[in-house]
């Protein structure tokens, strides 16, 4: 008999989605197409009633022909309620990690499956929680999608759906039609959408975009990143995940062009008032570090003034002086990055300036999908603390304010529940504008003095390390990464930073100093209460090697 292997079997389709994404609607559409084409169609799901955002599987079987004509046991074909590993013809995944899950569970296999997956990421909770970068490597998922399917159709179907003001189920349905994996013509699919009667035009537009996207090749995984020791230019990566979508690929390409331009025509990368600084970058710094330096030049000038930029270049120059010749200039590049970031610390003046910039308000309009000319109000949720206000004031005044119980109470009452400021209103904008106008006074503020001293101490330690251990110096510079957030989060970062520098001093001279510091820093970024760092230090003190941090538990 052996009818299964000889092809008398249903077409099997598994949909892996998250609750609330419309996976059920997609399954219903597929059933409708199948039924209209004379296929016996069945679908099942285990969707909890309102349990949103959890991973869910919908399963459809389409059996060609209808009821039994002969003398069979059953009049209707007996269809399964589960996808069977190794026997699924089509897998549709609403997101890249769900495609990975389909492969892991054996639903998508290289001998059989057409895998249609959206390449966008919907980050899982533990990827989002990390203090640093907890994202998994999208490139690994993309590699798996290519390896785990007979035919892989990949595109950012979420983006296509949003562009059509529809939902991802519609663009994925279009991709299913466009894949040719089902023996039905396009109008059959579109009829199913029309028959459902809800948001038909938007759904059809998203369907068409998905259909077209299915004709294009899926994005390829990037080749493995070259090892940094190989010399040559530093591979540009965004975060820890190598880019997979066109937008990120374009950003990478733009960054590469910029690096070339930083060498060829650095003046074009800064404004008119910074040409002297650009010239200095060319004269005094290694080529691979120049793009980053020019970013820092602009940033420090906008943040404070050109004198501040000069101070910035002086600081980085100390690293350029000890740079390894003809290499990727990692130390100088990272110093250029982290010194600029620290020097442009986020105080109330800086936040106010960021909030009132024209391009920022334009960005908000784009994000809110405001039509040209459409009215849009922007309200900030601000919660300045007494210490933050005291920090911004000139040193003497700041000291007095910080110590004044009366002022603390008065401001505390004002800001206890936070304030909502309408940046698009006259009062709100003027307030923020006035705050930003405090900029010239910043160098006389309490915090400014404190930050500069801390920066110099950090740089002195890094330079001292550079004399004996180049890699350790790089890692000390990168420890600035833990200085982030505001209020309590920033306080925690400052404490972690102090611990890391103390450990770095103790590690200097050990062959594994740099690697150990990296692990300690990762531990510092793993949680907010510092327990991971504490544990890592305890293990270090006991002589055990600090284990590499496993993915966030």
């Amino acid at each position: 008999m052996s009818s299964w292997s000889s092809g008398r079997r249903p077409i099997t389709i598994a949909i892996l989605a998250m609750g609330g994404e419309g996976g059920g609607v997609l399954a219903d559409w597929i059933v409708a197409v199948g039924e209209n084409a004379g296929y016996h169609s069945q679908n099942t799901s285990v969707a909890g009633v309102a349990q949103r955002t959890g991973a869910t599987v919908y399963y459809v079987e389409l059996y060609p022909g209808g009821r039994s004509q002969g003398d069979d046991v059953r009049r209707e074909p007996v269809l399964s309620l589960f996808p069977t590993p190794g026997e699924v013809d089509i897998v549709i995944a609403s997101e890249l990690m769900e495609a990975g899950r389909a492969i892991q569970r054996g639903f998508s296999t290289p001998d059989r499956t057409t895998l249609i997956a959206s390449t966008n990421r919907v980050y899982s909770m533990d990827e989002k929680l990390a203090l640093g970068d907890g994202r998994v490597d999208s490139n690994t998922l993309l590699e798996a999608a290519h390896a785990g399917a007979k035919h892989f159709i990949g595109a950012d179907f979420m983006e296509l759906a949003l562009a059509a003001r529809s939902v991802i189920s519609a663009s994925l349905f279009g991709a299913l039609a466009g894949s040719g994996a089902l023996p039905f013509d396009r109008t059959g699919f579109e009829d199913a959408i029309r028959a459902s009667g809800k948001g038909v035009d938007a759904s059809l537009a998203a369907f068409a975009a998905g259909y077209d996207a299915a004709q294009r090749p899926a994005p390829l995984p990037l080749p493995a990143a070259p090892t940094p020791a190989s010399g040559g230019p530093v591979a540009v990566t965004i975060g820890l995940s190598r880019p997979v979508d066109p937008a990120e690929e374009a950003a990478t390409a733009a960054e590469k062009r910029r690096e070339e331009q930083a060498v060829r025509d650095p003046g074009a990368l800064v404004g008119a008032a910074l040409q002297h600084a650009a010239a200095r970058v060319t004269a005094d710094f290694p080529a691979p570090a120049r793009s980053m330096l020019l970013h820092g030049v602009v940033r420090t000038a906008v943040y404070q003034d050109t004198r501040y930029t000069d101070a910035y270049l002086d600081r980085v120059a100390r690293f350029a002086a000890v740079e390894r010749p003809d290499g990727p200039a990692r130390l100088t590049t990272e110093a250029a990055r982290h010194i600029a970031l620290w020097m442009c610390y986020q105080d109330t003046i800086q936040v106010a300036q960021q909030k009132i910039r024209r391009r920022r308000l334009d960005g908000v309009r784009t994000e809110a999908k405001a039509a040209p000319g459409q009215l849009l109000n922007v309200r900030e949720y601000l919660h300045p603390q007494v210490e933050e206000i005291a920090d911004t004031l000139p040193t003497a005044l700041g000291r007095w304010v910080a110590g004044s119980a009366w002022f603390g109470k008065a401001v505390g009452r004002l800001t206890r529940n936070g304030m909502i400021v309408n940046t698009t209103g006259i009062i709100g904008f003027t307030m923020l504008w006035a705050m930003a106008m405090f900029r010239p006074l910043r160098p006389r503020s309490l915090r400014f003095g404190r930050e500069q001293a801390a920066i110099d101490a950090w740089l002195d330690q890094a330079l001292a390390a550079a004399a004996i251990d180049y890699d350790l110096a790089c890692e000390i510079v990168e420890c600035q990464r833990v200085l982030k957030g505001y209020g309590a989060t920033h306080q925690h970062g400052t404490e972690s930073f102090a611990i890391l520098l103390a450990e770095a001093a103790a590690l200097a001279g050990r062959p594994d100093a740099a690697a150990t510091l990296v692990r300690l820093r990762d531990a510092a970024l793993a949680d907010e209460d510092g327990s991971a760092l504490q544990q890592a230090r305890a293990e270090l003190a006991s002589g055990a090697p600090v284990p590499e941090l496993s993915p966030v538990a």
Partner: protein
Amino acid sequence: MAERSFAHEVRKLRTGAGDTLSGEGILAVTKALLQSGVAYVGGYQGAPISHLMDVLGDAHEILEELGVYFENSASEATAAAMLAASVNYPLRGAVTFKSTVGTNVASDALANLSSGGVRGGALVIVGEDYGEGSSIMQERSHAFAMKSQMWLLDPRPNIEAIVNAVEAGFELSEASSTPVMLQLRLRSCHLYGSFTAKDNVRPPMTVKDAVENPSRQLDRIVLPPASFLHEKEKIEDRWPAAVEYITSHGLNEVLGAGTSDVGIIVQGGVYNTLNRAMELLGVSDAYGNTQVPTYVMNVTYPVVDAEILDFVADKRAVLLLEEGQPDYIEQNLNAILRRAGSDVALHGKDLLPVAGEYTATVVTQALHAFLSKYLPGTVAERPALLLPHSDPGSPFAPRVEASVVRTRPPGLCTGCPERPIFSALKLAEKETGKKHHVSADIGCHLFAINEPFNLGATTMGYGLGSAGAAALNSKDADRRTVAVMGDGGFWHNGLTSGVGNAVFNQSDQLLLVVDNAYSAATGGQDVLSSRADSALRSTKHPIEKAVRGIGVTWARTVTNTYKIGELKDLFVKALTTKEPGPKVIVAQSECQLNKQRREKPQRAKAIKEGKRVVKERFGVDADTCTGDHACIRVSGCPSLSIKANPDPMRTDPVATVLDSCVGCGVCGANAHAASLCPSFYRSDLVFNPTWRDRTLAWLRARWIGALSLGVERRADRFEPAEVN
């Protein structure tokens, strides 16, 4: 009601004789009830049978036309007790609830119902939530059928078979004076298919007729000596009558008789999976033409001894597929075979997993092992799933690094009003510097046990959040215990089992009642405290009034949970007050899922009609965000995510608000209450602005334009023409 209409499904319930009805299993059951002349229906919602209750709730016109009584029972116990109407009167009644949690609640009533037996057909439709996707502990309904001696139907996952099972269930119940349980597995409830309908039938006797003609039989009441008599009746009369009906109506099926000297015995609910496994091994086809004799138990309790002995008579060995544990059927079959002196080899849990869902994979593996031993010649195919995982042809060959595929458990929706409650509780714990034992309950609020809240240590059952904290009550402790309950659980039993108990025993606990206006986790059904008007039910009974009514003195109601700062202060007060007795906080805000379902179309309509509408959403300034993700750790909203840092100097991803944001305000309130960071903003997009809006906007644009001139000019001197 859930602000969601089931009008489409209701229309299908009017399908007449000979027409085809397509839909989910649960809709088919609803239609089958009306075709069977049911006189009354009740039940308690819960996955996977919520849909049945919702459809009936919206079908009141049809029900009234037919004279069918319907109610949303207060609990499964209420629903089961409702079947008492079939004890004295020839009324067909059906109740439905989720199993096994509902069956546990109902078991007192079910036991009494089964003892006295029924005159009218009594059907208990249980939606069994076992296996992948389940949200409850894994138990079998089978145990309840056995202990109370109710017959258990487990039909094949096929719409027509399920419809037939409803009709057969009523008849079997009447033929044997015994209530019948119809077990619908999770996937069968959501199974889509079609069947040929019959006309709806008006019950020959309605509830009205019964009320107007009261009748009683003393020997049906569960009190000695009648209860001793019932025990005898069950065995001597009702069991043989059931066996007679099952056998004569062929409820169980024998397929492929005589084709071989080995066989398979399978629960009806697992039949489709078995046939798929047989197809994969080349011993059956899509129309079930099996080469291995198969006995399909569409009735899994009672087991019909004679049918089993008949089936095994010409066999060397049989394989039993019985999902779940304990292995009640396998034990039963062993007893039957031993008693009859049969030497047939019975395999079951020795070849299959003892526990867990019987997926196509495990069934295929077991069947392959069984057939390879007894009928090695028949296995024609070797599907890839039988290959060892190390074989590159195996579907399980490692093709993706395990660490990049993370778990993704369900969580609170975007805009959920329960998120700010747990944010506030987390912040209150930070402020008081004390962690508390949190006793959780069943409902969406249970998701607070996961990241990022990590609140909740146990969940003892629906409405038992407070009771679950009963023992952890100490006069000498420096803090009190926190208990959580939803409005659904509160009315289900929590008012008495929890609040009443805490008052009576002078518990010091803080009870948080999450009141989102519906029994939301089950699909948004109304409860007593629902704030919407209902034509059919009495609503708007405040929870605070109820707890004060049974003696709570410290009770506060918060009507806007999104005010995190105020809620946090209230938590601190409740955790530190010296007042004795339970402290109750009722935290009210409407379930966002239901609210959006109602308001989204209204808003779209208003915009279309030219009315002024403001659409709010939140955003994060990537420049101001430093990428520490503290906001995510205090919220966990699905719309609050991360994205690659657009700043080329910084490497860590920044927070971002996705388009799915509904503008609930939690981000902003958290930024304030937790003193997070100044990155959050709310954008208010105005549709159809008034002249006042436009004038103000014109003025503002001039003023802002003038002030920013200097700012932008200064920046232009430093920034390149095109900002990277």
